[in-house]
């Protein structure tokens, strides 16, 4: 089976509200043009297309069909969609190339979170019998998880603020970030509680955005770019949807996905942690020590486009290899409440 590499990545500016429609076309058209430029491929060269988005987020039926306008799907294309973060669409595209069905694929994700009330829309990800009918919002659920760790002595509010401070500082070098700046942890801790024990800096912002990643078989990739980011491992796992039956301070699915993907020796990790304490859970489960650079992009605390942010983590991790800055990087994506589903990909330079 051929190995697969990432050869292109583009993402839209992370913003609080785009003027465009919820079908993402306006965000995607310029990203596709960038991806073609990066790879030298044209629309006709892409053999498989796969996207991730959500109709609940868009507030309309079949929003992903409307998004296909951005491609210009004529003659007809080979296309698929996941109602999840596009990192899972990336997984599907990886499988297609591994199986030898296609040589090239383009994956995109988009989300206009500003159209609805995001933390309420996300309640529909919960068990529909006994949990969703209470409309617990996504921030409250994360707050229950954060307190469980505080009570267990696994982290302090200061630890959480330090994650936020580092993320904001790193985002200063990321022109697409929604928030950035040099703010000390002590200063952040002076702000009021939003959902006790979470403060504003602990919570990823509401973000509109989109991301595009181009994949190719390793052999094809070598013809197209100088340093393809070869996927040496990719796995995803899921934990119980029953919040009260889980130890919320742990993420066994992340640990299992990481072990299966083979993460030893990574230099950089882009972690999809929409809440500060979740980064600490992920680092522990993946066994990432101080030697691993975490979220040089600033991570999703500085811009979290729903259904595109996980794919953007893969793109950011690949970018470090494509631009020659690193040899082995890790990307993580999450979906569902309180880190329920987790995907880990490891990318490397081979030469």
């Amino acid at each position, binding site marked *: 089976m051929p190995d697969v590499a990432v050869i292109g990545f583009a993402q839209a500016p992370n913003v609080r509200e785009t*003027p*465009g*429609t*919820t*079908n993402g*076309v*306006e965000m995607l*058209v310029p990203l*596709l043009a960038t991806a073609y430029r990066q790879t030298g491929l044209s*629309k006709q060269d892409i053999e498989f297309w796969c996207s991730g988005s959500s109709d*609940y987020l868009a*507030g*309309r039926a079949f929003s992903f069909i409307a998004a*296909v*306008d*951005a*491609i*210009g*799907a*004529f003659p007809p294309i080979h296309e698929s969609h996941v109602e999840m973060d596009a990192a899972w669409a990336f997984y599907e595209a990886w499988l297609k190339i591994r199986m030898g069905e296609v040589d090239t694929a383009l994956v995109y994700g988009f989300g206009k979170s*500003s*159209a*609805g*009330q995001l*933390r*309420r*829309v996300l309640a*529909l990800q919960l068990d*529909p*019998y*006994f*949990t*969703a*009918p*209470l*409309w*617990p*919002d996504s921030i*409250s*659920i994360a*707050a*229950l*998880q954060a*307190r*469980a760790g505080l*009570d267990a002595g696994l982290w302090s509010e200061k630890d959480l603020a330090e994650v936020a401070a580092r993320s904001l500082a790193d985002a200063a070098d990321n022109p697409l970030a929604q928030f950035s700046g040099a703010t000390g942890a002590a200063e952040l801790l002076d702000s009021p*509680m939003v*959902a*006790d*024990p*979470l403060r504003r800096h602990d919570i990823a912002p509401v973000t509109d955005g989109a991301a595009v990643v181009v994949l190719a078989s390793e052999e094809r990739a070598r013809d197209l770019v100088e340093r393809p980011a070869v996927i040496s491992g990719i796995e995803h796992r899921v934990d*119980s949807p*029953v*919040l*009260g*039956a889980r130890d*919320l301070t742990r993420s066994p699915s992340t640990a299992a996905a990481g072990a299966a993907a083979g993460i030893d020796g990574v230099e950089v990790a882009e972690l999809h942690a929409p809440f500060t304490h979740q980064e600490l859970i992920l680092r522990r489960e993946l066994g990432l020590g101080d030697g691993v650079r975490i979220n040089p992009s600033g991570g999703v605390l500085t811009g979290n486009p729903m259904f595109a942010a996980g794919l953007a983590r893969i793109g950011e991790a690949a970018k470090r290899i494509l631009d020659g800055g690193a040899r082995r990087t890790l990307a993580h994506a999450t979906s569902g409440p309180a880190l329920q589903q987790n995907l880990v990909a490891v990318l490397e330079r081979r030469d």
Partner: protein
Amino acid sequence: MNIGFDYTRSVGPVLGRFVNGLAAHRIEGVRGSDGRVHVPPVEYDPLTAEALTEFVEVGTEGTVKSWTWMAEPLDGQPLSRPFAWALIQLDGADTAMLHAVDVPGPEHMSTGMRVAVRWADETVGHIRDIAYFRPVRTDTADAGPTADPPPVAEREEGDPVGVVITPVHLKYRHSASPEESRYLRALAKGKLIGQRCPVCHKVYLPPRGACPTDGVPTTDEVELPDTGIITTFCVVNVPFLGQRIKPPYVTAYVLIDGADIAFLHLILGCDAADVRMGMRVRASWRPREEWTTSLENIAHFEPTGEPDAPYESFAHHL
């Protein structure tokens, strides 16, 4: 835009036992393969996937395992006054359930505190039969539930609850794209504005963010007349909820002269039986003072009396 739907779900034997218990002010969990008691019950063991059948009644008091404060409750939540969310492990259960705790402020909450069920005034067989929890020890008076009981599915007298209904209401703000905005503003002035794809030269009305054939923005603006042809049509004979015109009437795809995509509109001004494919039509505009940024400024299309367009001229638009 407000979107609403009552989600109707059948509960089956395991979840059904739980909701019927709630209606009778009783809480039952299910014993897992490892002996743990799951409350609310799960149909299959999370570790072994074995079907679970041994029900265990648990207490209506329990212990808070984690909590957070909801200072500004959102639509649909158990209480409309500020409250705490908590994971509550009921006495006799080994898992926690998520629910609301009614206390005046976060200073009244702590992990490990004891709480008790406050039943809804009317219990119907739904998770909302638990209105909220209250501290076992409290000096605060109970101000009572703030939400009505959920809707109930019809069933035979005496039958157990087999279906739960959960209304879902979400609000969205849909924005028009820049292309659509120009089109809508032109409509307010009585004009039809389309856009031409720079690659395939097709004219889209309404304009789109990207040509669906070529994937490029359609930037070249084209002012179009208010005449065109009927490509295909449908005679509506069936009355339905929300219908604004008395049947029979005709809805048709109208292809405006110079445009390459048809839109759906109403045909009046002739007998429904006389409407034909290829028939020439003209827009009938509402009075100018009623114009807004909407295609509804055109009340309907009506025949011009000109000769029909030959089939070959519009066959590729069908």
